[in-house]
């Protein structure tokens, strides 16, 4: 695995229930999107994008999806829930697809911020991320890097 700088544009983490955690590997997303995406290309409105996969049992009352955009800092922080049962039942390739969909949904949610939309091409970002996800074996390549 390559070393990543602490200061970068794309941050990805997870709030993953301990029974799920070993099954979900978010590291390939961290590396592939760090290397493949330059937020500056889409405008000045977003300098940092924090994204969180949220997978908790259905009866959990503490952790919930959220989203926040700071116009001042030009940072977005979005958490998207993936249904627990779907993750439990998914095969590894299906789980990667679920994670890809969640990430793209997170980008889609950026559109709810009018201030961001004025100065940032969210659709362009989404298109380029989709392109990465459509690359054959991108997940395995990033995991092996």
């Amino acid at each position, binding site marked *: 695995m390559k*070393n990543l700088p602490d200061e970068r544009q794309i941050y990805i983490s997870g709030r993953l229930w301990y029974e799920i955690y070993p099954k979900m590997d978010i590291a390939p997303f961290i590396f592939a999107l760090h290397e493949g995406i330059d937020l500056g290309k889409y405008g000045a409105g977003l300098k940092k994008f924090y994204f969180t996969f949220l997978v908790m049992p259905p009866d959990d*009352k*503490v952790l919930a999806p959220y989203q926040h955009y700071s116009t001042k800092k030009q940072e977005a922080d979005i958490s998207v829930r993936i249904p627990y049962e779907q993750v439990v039942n998914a095969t590894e390739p299906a789980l990667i697809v679920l994670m890809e969909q969640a990430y793209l949904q997170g980008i889609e949610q950026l559109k709810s911020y009018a201030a961001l939309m004025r100065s940032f091409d969210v659709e362009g970002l989404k298109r380029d991320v989709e392109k990465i996800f459509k690359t054959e074996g991108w997940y395995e390549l990033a995991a092996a890097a």
Partner: protein
Amino acid sequence: MKHYQLDTDTETQAEQKLDSPKKLEHPFQSPQSDPQKAWYFFGLLMVVSFGVWMISQMSGEKKSPIVFEKNGEAMLAPHRQEKLNKELEEIENAIQYSLRASIDGYFPCHTCPDSTRTIYLYKGQVWRYGSTRKEENERYPGGNYGASNIVFVPEFRGTIAECLRMEKIKIYNYPLLPEARAREFLLAIPPGNKIDN
């Protein structure tokens, strides 16, 4: 007045001479009937009265903590009952979690013996144990865990007391974990924890 160097009588006369032009400028001025001061006093009184009125208005609008049933029995007002329920629920629903490395790499270390204050963790290794009853974005706003490349792994659910108990057990037992014992130096607590609790 010392610079005039006059005797007493002459000094008095000189003072009268010096004072007289002032008196001519303000012939009706006296401490008892200063209209400017009176206006200041009146203004101050108005401000204080307004403040008192505002406070009384605000306190009048504040909801009472109790309400009375038709039979005259007092009970908690709905807004207080709701707040109580929410706070009880927060106490009941807490999570003990670990923050773990999501990639192999260097992470901050608060208790490491070397001066670099960093430690190399492999993916999945524990960086910190904690407990929270707040939503995670409140606990770590902006995804700021205190280190990059971290994953939040909820490990136990229960009351806040149960979670704190579990957290403490895990922090103290950290040096017994295989990942901790495999290092050249032994950490008493996880690298992301600053103190025992």
